[in-house]
């Protein structure tokens, strides 16, 4: 059970949070994007074993989204970043 350091609220238990997936850059304008490119955006993720960047939301708390650097094998959380915070 993760102890997730919310960048706004501090460390909180996993059940307060919602996992939001690996961030993906939205290609625009839509009409000019190929089917392949759009499918990649919708469905392709690194699914990294080890160091992984992912979005979480403190849904049961402040309601804020943030970026998490987590190891998908050990579940060590390296750090969490507010949106826009320099990586």
């Amino acid at each position: 059970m993760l102890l997730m350091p919310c960048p706004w609220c501090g460390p909180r238990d996993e059940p307060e949070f919602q996992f939001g997936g690996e961030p993906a850059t939205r290609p625009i304008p839509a009409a000019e994007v190929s089917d392949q490119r759009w499918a990649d955006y919708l469905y392709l993720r690194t699914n990294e074993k080890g160091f992984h960047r992912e979005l979480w939301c403190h849904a049961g708390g402040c309601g804020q989204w943030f970026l998490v650097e987590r190891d998908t094998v050990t579940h060590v959380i390296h750090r969490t970043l507010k949106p826009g915070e320099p990586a």
Partner: protein
Amino acid sequence: MKRLPTGGRIDRAAPRAFTWDGKALGGFKGDTLASALLANGIRIIGRSFKYHRPRGLYGAWSEEPNAIVDLAWKGEHDPNARSTLVDLQAGMAASGLNAWPSVAHDVYGLIDRFHRFIPAGFYYKTFKSPRWETFEGRIRQMAGLGTLRRSDDRRRYETRHAETDVLVVGAGPAGLAAARAAHAAGLRVILADDRAAWGGSLLWREGVIDDRAAADWVADTIAGLDGATLLPRTTVFGAYDHNAFGLLERRPSAADGWATERVWQVRARHVVLATGAIERPLVFPGNDRPGVMSAAAVLQYLREYGVLAGNRVVLVTNNDSAYETAHALIAAGARITIADARPELGAIARRAADHGIQVRANTVPVNTGGRHGLRWVDVAPRDNLAARERIPADVVAISGGWSPAVHLHSQAGGKLRWDAAEAAFLPEAARPGQHLAGAITGGTSLAEALEAGHHAGTVVASTFGRASAVLPPRAEPAAAPSPIAPLWFVPVPDQRQWIDFQNDVTLKDVALAARENYASVEHLKRYTTLGMANDQGKTSNVNGLAALAAFTGREIPEVGTTTFRPPFVPVSLGALAGMRHGRLYAPIRHLPSHADHLGNGAEMREYGGWLRPACYLRVGETVPQAIQREAASARQAAGLLDGSSLGKIEVQGADAAAFLNLLYYNELATLKPGRLRYCLLLRETGVVYDDGVVARLAPDRFLLSPSSSHTAGVLAMLRAWHQTEYPAMQVAFHDITAAWATYAISGPNARAILGRLATSIDISDAALPHMAIADGSIGGVPGRIARVSFTGERSYELSVPASHGAALWRHLLDLGARDGITLFGIEALSVLRAEKGFILIGTDTDGMTLPVDLGVTAPLRNKKVDFVGKRSLLTPDATRPDRRQFVGLLPADPRFVPAVGSHAIETADGKRRSIGWITTSCRSPALGRSIALGMIEAGRARIGETVELFHLGQTSRATITAPCHLDPAGERLHD
């Protein structure tokens, strides 16, 4: 076997009567069921799983593999109670299980005669013809342990959450010293131990600490831990990520009943694992006979419960630890012979010999005998097994060394290493935030355990920048023990030697697995079922893999060990679920006028997490009749519906319009203040997620009304898009659903009824046309009226603060009485909207439905911004001409209502193919016939065609129409 007149922590003044297999027996307060059975001379307590061999007590605590019983007490029941873990209570009725007629005389014991034909995994090699099920029923009846009674379980289960600086697991000398040091440094400490009394091994081992008897030191130490959370009778059963732990506390009930089980979830900054070690059995021929017991357990029964397990004891060991048992037994009056497998007598053995105990070096057991319990044991020199000598014995106390209780360490991802000198798997290194002390790190003396515990406590304290204010506890340093000499099994070929007692895994089974190349330890475990019984291999794992190593010519570390999985001891499912059952499993929301609905005869059902009226039953009416009546009245006169559960999300900010225009499928930038628009909300995959009316209250203020079940989801979606994709936009969201009560009046008389309502809002058609909204006061409270219709009739939605809801509801009923106002529920609403061909999200749509399937195509053609899901509407699949499309259907037989879920089919070459399905159907009171809605392949192009419908083998016919069955021009909205 007998109870001694003195000794132990039992209360001889408090007798406890209980029954065993119907026979009345007696024990004392402080006994476990196991110790009481032993004191009463009950030898056979269980039967093994496969061969139905008679089994007695091996251990004294959670390692016990054999003595699982059926336990009934005070109207409750435990089908698989481990007798060593049951606090004896007066009136308990225990009995043997998985045997007939009793464990003492079990006719299934005959199976054992055929053991050579049913080796490990025999079932993989046979029972194939004609099919497994031919045999399965019988085999299932034979398998299983206890019998579950089908009554309700009325016991209470509780849940607790806690956070602490340090969790100390185990209150033996190491754990106590750690807790003491951490506590003295001012840390928040939780100390958990699975025993009812504090002290761990000090409960049955002698020692002197800080110049006091160990028991006194334990009592003083516990007394000194004021403010710490002390959890006796608490097993830490699981270690999870980031130092989270699961604890099972058994709280004695005040009212003399079953203990209340409470599961704790503890988040610890640090954990000290002082979990000790578990004694391993020796593997030798006949080692499963009742009377063969763990040497430590024999000592525990003696010291803790005053029970002498046997009068004539042969103690067999390969290490020093068992000698304490020998001395204690002698002192209690037993006769003792010691067989030490080690080639020469070490210091401790020589001391025993000096005391007059018969000690034989280089001696191992080679057989045991006795029906219904042990009578004799044959021993022989280790290097000349043929030179057997028979020694009479009623107990053989065995010690094959100690396996550190590394379970929690391993569960937390800790690695293990094989230590050849200790002949044990030890933790390789502590995990972050984890500290190890005492026997979990290998054989330690009392002095070493105390020191390691104290050290762990001070290390934890130092990470908080604190120092411990107490001196380390001291005990006399012990002389170095003579090393253990592993004896993994005794190489006599013909006889069975047990490794896993409960599952009947013998040495031969391991040999067979090795021979057949089930050579990975996990294959061994699965093929033979080694370590898979109730004790989860606590006593059998290491012996099993040592044997596998021997049979495959490898070293033990090469073979490796299996993964330790939670829970450490079996935990009742009820305790793990805790309070989460019944209503609390998933709470249901109630409407502000709930009581009124009940008073009005509502049949309440759950819709999207809310309890809402399905219909209002009048005397003598059936539910379908009520639905038809309500729907008809709403069309003919007026209906009143409680719509309070409909979502209400306020969206505000300078960029609210621009933001919503990016989110919603429909154009919102052009929506004028005071006006409403029906909109779809898509997922990025183009699928319709929700629909609802969006109101623009002011240029920078919108009110969304998502479906009841999607309100939370829509809010989450808005937030996610705002924060992750459009963070620069000035917009904020508020879920105000619960703050408002909303009622809809619908029907030709709606206008007249509202005309009598005291409101500041101008409800004239000019001021409040269809799809408009206005604020004002309603009956003296601030409110809002929206002109919007889900029924196709002229409709008004009135909203007031939730606390005024019930009053308004009653008031509207009064106002409408003379115009025939009728309450209608969700089911009639569904009929009304079906007549109009309006979709219901999740009923007419599913996870594949695109807006184009619903015929809503204008935004895709006209809207310029990159709204959510737009690009997904342009893929080859989204633009396929044969997509399923939303249509109406008129059954050929107007009295026949085709079931929702019926498929429309095409038949080609004698093969049926589904071309879609019915999503809604009902009898329409307005049309006096059956109608339906559905999704049909290329449905819009098929309007006018007849299709075949299929439902559970029956077929019928229907004509495809446009979705709207009534008033397609929408004239009734303005009537």
